[in-house]
């Protein structure tokens, strides 16, 4: 047993050290595998970043109330009476002023211009009152200041500013006939709120002809454990039959689950196709490695090395090449794409800005694909190396 291990170790070392002799072919295989890894990982990281942003947006102790069946904030409408009734629900936290923290909000869509394509895109403009900031503890003003209640002032999310033009600090914007001034930039890292514009709810109501209606309500509860009782209250109270409550984290979680399109229909099929192409390249490289070393392998066999060690030598060489390729592919994505800003249309029918994000799970998936290429690329040539007849090889 120990002898087999020693033999195998020696052959592996020989194989790996001989890679430079076939430098260009080995590099070609490595680069091909690296590109497979980069393309696959690029798509996975794009989808991962989007999902992480949605998943990171909701709090466990905030409830979102919408009109039943509306499914998104844009389609929802609520009147003040319904909102007043919500105040009777259990578990609502009190603010510093002793009032319940219930944030009635408006959600309208305005046009922005996407920097990357120069085309119009849907931007969410959220009308908020003072409690709106209390229910979003992640958010803080980075530049400028908060809008003053009752004025045509607006603050812009840092993610939105990154991806879309027209909302720079100090700028005056027109939505229809109303004129607004951008007075601040806020950040709420890793959440969808960073892709929003915020203004005073009462001003949005009057300038967008919304009368006294609201679209959504967010309620700060005393803690995550108060959630079931609150949801139960909204579901059972006969006067609230037109409404529907969910936890905020659940609301965004559900949206993130609907975002798998990119990976399922583009990322993986493309990755698999490219992997097949790279596999053909890897097999070619390993076959030519075996044939260029046929005399060497034959000599080893004659002096008593096993076929198994010849097989393992080839296999190890192939795996080393694919591991180096995987490393290069990961490096390409990590250096050029990780953290890159991107945006797409989210479930709320507005743009969500997010960052391309690598994660341990998707790294593992991409590396497994690369090693699989290396493994299959090593099995068949390795088999040929192990089976080749020593004397025939030497006399050739």
């Amino acid at each position, binding site marked *: 047993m120990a002898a087999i291990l020693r033999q195998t170790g020696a052959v592996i070392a020989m194989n790996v050290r001989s890679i430079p002799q076939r430098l260009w072919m080995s590099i070609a295989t490595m680069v091909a595998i690296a590109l497979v890894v980069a393309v696959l990982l690029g798509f996975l990281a794009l989808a991962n970043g989007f999902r992480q942003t949605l998943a990171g947006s909701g709090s466990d102790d905030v409830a979102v109330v919408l009109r039943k069946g509306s499914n998104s904030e844009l389609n929802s409408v609520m009147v003040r009476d319904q909102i007043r009734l919500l105040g009777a629900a259990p578990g609502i936290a009190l603010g510093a002023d002793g009032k319940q923290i219930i944030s009635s909000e408006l959600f*309208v869509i305005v046009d922005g211009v996407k920097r990357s394509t120069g085309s119009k895109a849907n931007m969410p403009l959220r009308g908020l009152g003072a409690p709106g900031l209390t229910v979003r503890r992640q958010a803080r003003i980075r530049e400028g200041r908060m809008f003053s209640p009752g004025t045509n002032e607006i603050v812009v999310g840092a993610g939105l500013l990154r991806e879309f033009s027209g909302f720079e600090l100090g700028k005056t914007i027109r939505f229809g006939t109303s004129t607004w001034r951008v007075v601040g930039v806020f950040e709420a890292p890793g959440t969808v709120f960073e892709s929003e514009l915020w203004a005073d709810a009462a001003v949005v109501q009057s300038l967008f002809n919304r009368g006294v209606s609201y679209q959504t309500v967010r309620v700060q509860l005393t803690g995550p454990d108060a959630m079931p009782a609150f949801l139960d209250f909204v579901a059972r109270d006969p006067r609230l039959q037109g409404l529907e409550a969910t936890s905020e984290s659940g609301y965004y979680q559900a949206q993130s689950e609907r975002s798998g399109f990119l990976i399922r229909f583009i990322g993986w099929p493309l990755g698999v196709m490219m992997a097949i192409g790279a596999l053909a390249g890897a097999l070619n490289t390993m076959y030519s490695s075996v044939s260029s070393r046929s005399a060497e392998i034959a000599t080893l066999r004659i002096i008593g090395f096993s076929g198994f060690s010849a097989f393992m030598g080839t296999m190890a060489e192939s795996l080393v090449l694919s591991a180096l390729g995987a490393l290069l592919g990961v490096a390409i994505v990590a250096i050029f794409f990780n953290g890159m800003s991107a945006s797409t249309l989210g479930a709320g029918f507005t743009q969500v800005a997010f960052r391309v994000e690598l994660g341990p799970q998707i790294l593992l998936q991409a590396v497994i694909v690369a090693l699989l290429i290396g493994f299959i690329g090593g099995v068949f040539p390795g088999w040929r190396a192990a089976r080749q007849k020593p004397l025939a090889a030497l006399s050739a």
Partner: protein
Amino acid sequence: MTDLDLVARNLWRKPLRTILLIISILVAFLIFTILIGFNFAYERSLDESSRANRLVVNNKINFTESLPYAYFNRIARAPGVTDATHASWFGAFYQDQRTSRFVGFAVDPESYLRVYAEQILMPEEQKQAFIRERTGVIVGRDLAEKYGWRIGDTIPISSNIFSQRDGSRAWDMKVVGIFSGARPSDSTTALYFQYAYYNETITFGRDQIGSVSLLTTGPEANDATARAIDAQFANSSAETATVDEKTFSRSFLQQAGDINFIITLVVSAAFAAILMIVGNTMVTAIRERTNEIGVLKTIGFSSPRVLRMVLGESVLLSLIGAGAGVVLGGLALKALESQAPFGALDLEPVVVAMAFAIAVLLGLLTGLIPAVSALRMSIIEALSRR
């Protein structure tokens, strides 16, 4: 034996290597054909679904904001406008909104059927029934097939935006027509019903319309017409943004992401990988034959002839792989057709021509280094190298 025979035999001297190379090339062209083919079909569908002289008027704030109904008549009378209609998004679904949402608009039947005549094809008596029947609805053929709806059926259509005054969220509508699209392969999964019925039953947003579509006297009149309309409503409670239909559809689709950019990046990566693999293998393959080339030269093959043979081999290899890739890609596009949001996914001749040109270029490029070294080699050198 002609030179071509020699090239073909050289190609098959190591069948396994050649087959593996062909697979690599095939994959690159398969990816090329699917992605570029998809992109062409997308561009074509933009062209076909829009008429050059059809403009769309939306609220300037965003297309999800509505316009007052009164605007419709004023727009219809604007200079350069020959016909106009309006449509309001309904957020339609059938029974379960998670699985059965579809495009649904409340429209003015008579003018809508005129302005979008080429997209809504159905018998004249069904058109008349749609104009007559207040609760009538026309549904796309694909949608009707999916739910088994027939003419005369009354179906409950719900909205994720509106509710009726009696509190119910489903509208009973009578199927009076089933339409097909401009091309037999166009997907028809939309429904249209009467604005009058919609407007008198909704609880909010009455006398508002989503957008106005209009026809101009001709594409050259588009800009002036759009400017005139937008100027007419400047500083009113709802300002308008008027653009041609293609521009509107494109900016809507681009909201999903920069499709062209992603396709370019992926196709380049695929070709870069294949170029590396095939190029290096060709170099090795020719180097193995250095002795042979020496023999060929000794028996009187001129250097340019040897060069042509080596290049011929790499171009042939590239063309075989590319041909197979394009054929497979064409089949894959056909298979994906039912999933695509827009019409037929045919393999356009221009895509095939592009693939052919790239294949020849790839062949020349991968054959270049070994061919030049074969050309430069002196007979003595070639024969003595082992």
